[in-house]
C-alpha cells in the first residue's frame, strides 16, 4: 500500500473507455478532460487515485476514469471519501459531484468536510439544476428560475458554496469554468497538491435544462486580484463579485486532519488487560 513512483502516462491512459451518459455539449466532458490532464501532469498512477462520488449526472464520472472509483448513494460522497482517505492516507482521494448532491442532500457533510480538513479535493460541477431528474431547482438555482416543480421560481436565496466553504474552514477554495480547460486543469492540479480539504466549484453548463448557461463562456473572467490567505477577505470578495470570477480565491495553511492508520492487524495487543479484576 505504499505510494508508487511517479509515472508518465498519456491522458488517454486515465480513461476507462465506458461511454458517458452525459448529453452532447455537457460541461462535464470538459471537467473530465481537465481532471485527467491535471492528474497526468502530476504523474499520479491511476491505481493510486480514488475518485468518489454520489448521485447525479456529474457523479457518474468515476466509471469513466481508469482510477479506483466509488459511486455511492446520493449526497454521501464526502463521508465515503473521508473514511477512505483516513484509512488509506497513501491514496490521492478526489471527491466529485454536482450542486444537488453536494449542497442539498449532502449539505451537512459539505460543512463538516470543510471543518475536518481531511486531505481530499472536492470538485463540484455546478449547473444550478437537477439534471438527472430533468430540471428541478437546486440550492444554487436563482430564485426566479421557472420550473415545473417550482412554478414562477423558488423565491428563495441561492446557496453560496464558496462563502460557506470559507466560513467552514476549507483550506483551498477556487472557482473554475468547465469551458476553460487550461485554467481548470491548473486549478485542479493545485487543489490536489494543496494539503487539507480543497474545494473547487466548477461552473459546468447543463445545455439541456439550462440552455441559457451557454452564455457563461462570455461572462467568466479572471479575478482582478490574486488569491489571498485571509479567509475573511476572500469571503468579502466572493460575496461582492459578479459570480463569474474564476481562479484560486483562497489558500489556507491550517493543519490537515491527521489520524493516519498504520494498519497493524496482527499485533499481539492485550486488549483485555484493563478488564482483569
Amino acid at each position, binding site marked *: *500500500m505504499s505510494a*508508487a513512483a511517479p509515472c508518465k502516462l498519456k491522458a488517454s491512459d486515465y480513461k*476507462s473507455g*465506458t461511454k458517458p451518459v452525459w448529453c452532447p455539449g455537457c460541461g462535464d466532458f470538459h471537467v473530465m478532460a481537465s481532471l485527467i490532464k491535471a492528474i497526468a501532469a502530476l504523474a499520479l*498512477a*491511476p*491505481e*493510486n487515485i*480514488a475518485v*468518489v462520488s454520489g448521485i447525479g449526472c456529474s457523479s*457518474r464520472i*468515476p*466509471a469513466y476514469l*481508469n*482510477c*479506483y*472509483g*466509488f*459511486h*455511492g*448513494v446520493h*449526497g*454521501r460522497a*464526502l*463521508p*465515503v*471519501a*473521508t*473514511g*477512505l*482517505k*483516513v*484509512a*488509506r492516507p*497513501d*491514496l490521492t482521494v478526489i471527491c466529485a459531484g454536482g450542486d444537488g448532491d453536494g449542497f442539498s442532500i449532502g449539505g*451537512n*457533510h459539505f*460543512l*463538516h468536510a470543510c471543518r475536518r480538513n481531511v486531505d481530499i479535493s472536492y470538485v463540484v460541477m455546478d449547473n444550478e439544476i437537477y439534471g438527472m431528474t430533468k430540471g428541478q431547482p437546486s440550492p444554487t438555482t436563482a430564485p426566479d428560475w421557472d420550473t415545473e416543480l417550482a412554478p414562477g421560481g423558488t423565491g428563495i436565496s441561492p446557496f453560496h458554496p464558496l462563502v460557506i466553504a470559507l466560513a467552514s474552514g476549507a483550506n483551498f477554495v477556487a472557482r473554475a469554468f468547465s469551458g476553460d480547460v487550461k485554467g481548470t486543469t491548473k486549478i485542479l492540479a493545485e487543489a490536489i497538491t494543496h494539503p487539507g480539504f480543497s474545494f473547487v466549484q466548477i461552473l459546468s453548463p447543463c445545455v439541456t435544462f439550462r440552455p441559457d448557461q451557454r452564455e457563461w463562456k462570455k461572462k467568466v473572467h479572471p479575478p482582478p486580484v490574486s488569491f489571498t490567505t485571509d479567509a475573511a477577505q476572500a469571503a468579502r470578495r466572493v460575496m461582492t463579485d459578479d459570480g463569474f470570477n474564476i481562479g484560486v480565491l483562497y489558500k489556507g495553511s491550517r493543519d490537515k486532519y491527521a*489520524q*493516519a*492508520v*498504520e*494498519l*497493524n*492487524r496482527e*499485533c499481539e*495487543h492485550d*486488549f*483485555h488487560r484493563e*478488564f*482483569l*479484576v
Partner: protein
Amino acid sequence: MTDQQSGKSFSVALLGTGGTGVITAGEILLAAAARCGFYGLMIRAAGPQIRGGESAALLRLSPAPVGCLDDRFDVLLGVDWKHAERLLADIAIDADSIVITDPAEEGVPQSITATGATLQQLEMKELAESVSGGRVNMVALGYVAGLVGIPEDAIRHAIDKELHGKGQQAVNASIAAAILGFSRTQGLAAPQAGDGESSDRWMISGNHATGLGALRGGIRFAAAYPITPATEILEWLAPQLKDAGGTLTQAEDELASINMAIGASYGGVPSLTATSGPGLSLMIEGLGLAVCAEIPVVVVNVMRAGPSTGIPTKPEQSDFNAAVYGLHGDAPHIVVAPNSVTDCVYTTQWAVHIAEATQAPVIVLSDQFIGQSIVVADPVPAISFFAKRKLAENIPEVFERYAVTADGISPMPLPGTPGGQYTADGLVHTAGAIPSGRADDHGAQLDKRARKIADFDYGQHWADIDGEGEFAILTWGSTTSVVREAMQRLPDKVASKLKLIALRLLLPVRQEDMAAALDGVNHLMVIEQNHTGQLYRFLRAWYDLPADVDTVHRPGPGVFRPGEIVTRINDWCGE
C-alpha cells in the same frame, strides 16, 4: 423466595437523584465484591436527565456467574427518595428486604413501607459532611459493602482503582467516607463469596466487550456518532484503536458514520460503527449500498425502546424487523445477536469475520441491558476468527470485480493494486462493475449476493442449544440469560423436558439447522421483548415449526425476570 430459588445470590439497589453518584458507588461495590471472590452483575437504571433525574445501580452478587437480575432485592438503599417512584417498578421489595434511609431525607415512599421491609437508618449526609470532601455515595457504598461482608481492604482497593484519575485527595476522602459507612454495619446473613480465586476474572460491560470483540476480530477503523446506549463502545474504541494501529473518526451524523466506515473498508481496513435505533434508521441507506457494492462493514445496534426516540436509556428487542427487513430492494445481509454480556466479545468478533469473508454488511443486535450491564465473569478466551477478505492481488488480463463465482464471493482488489481499478457501485452493475439496467445482469448479481450469504459456513455458531426435551424455548439476546436461569431453577423432572435454542444468527435463515434442532420437539415457546412478537412472526414465515407454538412477547422497558419465566414454564409443561 428461598435461597435455592434465587441461586444464593444477593441483590442490592442503590437509589438516588441523578448526580448523587449511586452509579459510581455501584461500580465500586461490584469491583470490591469481585476482588473477594464474587461473581456479579450491575445495570444502571436511569432517566434521560444527566443531573437531577432518577438514577439507580441495580446489583446482584453471587458465588456463581449470573447473567440477569433476580426477581427481588435484598437491600434497597436510598440516598434520597425524590424521584424514587419512577424506578420502583424495577426494584421489587418484600418483607425479607432491608431498606436503608437517611433520617435527614424525606420519608421512604409508602409503597415501600407497605411491603413490611425492615427499615434501617443511616445518617449518610451527616457522616459525609464529617469528612472533608466526603460524599454520601461513598458512605452508602461502605455501609452496603459491610452488609454484604466485603472486607475493608477490598473497598479501599476498589475505590483507589476506580477513582484514581480524580487525584489522591479525592481517593482519600472517598475511602474515609466509605469506612465511616462500613463501621456502621451490623452485619447480615450475607452469602459467602465463591472460592476466592478471582484473580483471572474480568469485570466488563457488554459495550466494552463489543469493542473488545471488534478489535480481536481485526477492526481498525471506526466511525462514531454518539447515541445512548451505544456510545461506550465508541468511547472505549477511540484510544484502543490508536494503540492497535487504527483510528476512530467522529462523524457529523449517522449517515456520515456508515459511509465513512464503508469508505475505509473499500480501502481495505476492516471497519465498524455503533449506534442505536434512530441511528440504525439513518444507516439503512448506507447498508443497502454496502450490500450492492459488496463492501464489508459491521454495524452494532444497541437496541433501546422505540419507535422514534423511544426510551433512550431502557432496553427492548424491537429493532428485529428494522435490522432484518429495513433495506429496500432484495438486499441479503447478516444479522447476529449476542446472548449475554460476555458473548458480545465472541459474537462481535464473529460478525467481523463474516463481514470480511462475505464482503457484506453485518448488523450486531445488542441491547441496552446487555450493553450497559457490567458483569464479573470468567475471562472470554480468544478465538481464531479473524478478518480475512478474499483479495485480488495479482490481477489477470481480463478481470471482473463482481465475477460470478461458485461461492458467490468475488476477489476484491484494494486501491493501490495495479490493474485492479474498478468503480464500486450502488447501481445495478455487470460482473465487470459497469452500470447496467439489464435483467440478466441484475439477476446474476442478485443470485450471487444471495448465494454468498446463504452458503457461507456459519458452523454451530448459529445458535446455542442446551437440553434435549420435547418442550423447546426459542429466544435471543438479553432474554437468553433470563431463560437460562429459569431453567436452572426448575426441578430436574421439569428441566429434563426442556430444550433451549438461543439464536445467534438471525439472518440468513438456517432451515436445515433449525429442523435438526427442532427434531423431537413437539411444543415451542418463543420469548422476546417487544410488542408484536417480531421474532415469532419471522419464524412462522421462514421455518417449519411444531404445531404447538406459544409466543411470549411484551415490550420494554422492564426486562423479563427469571421468576416469571419459571411460572410460565410450570404452567406450560409442569406437573
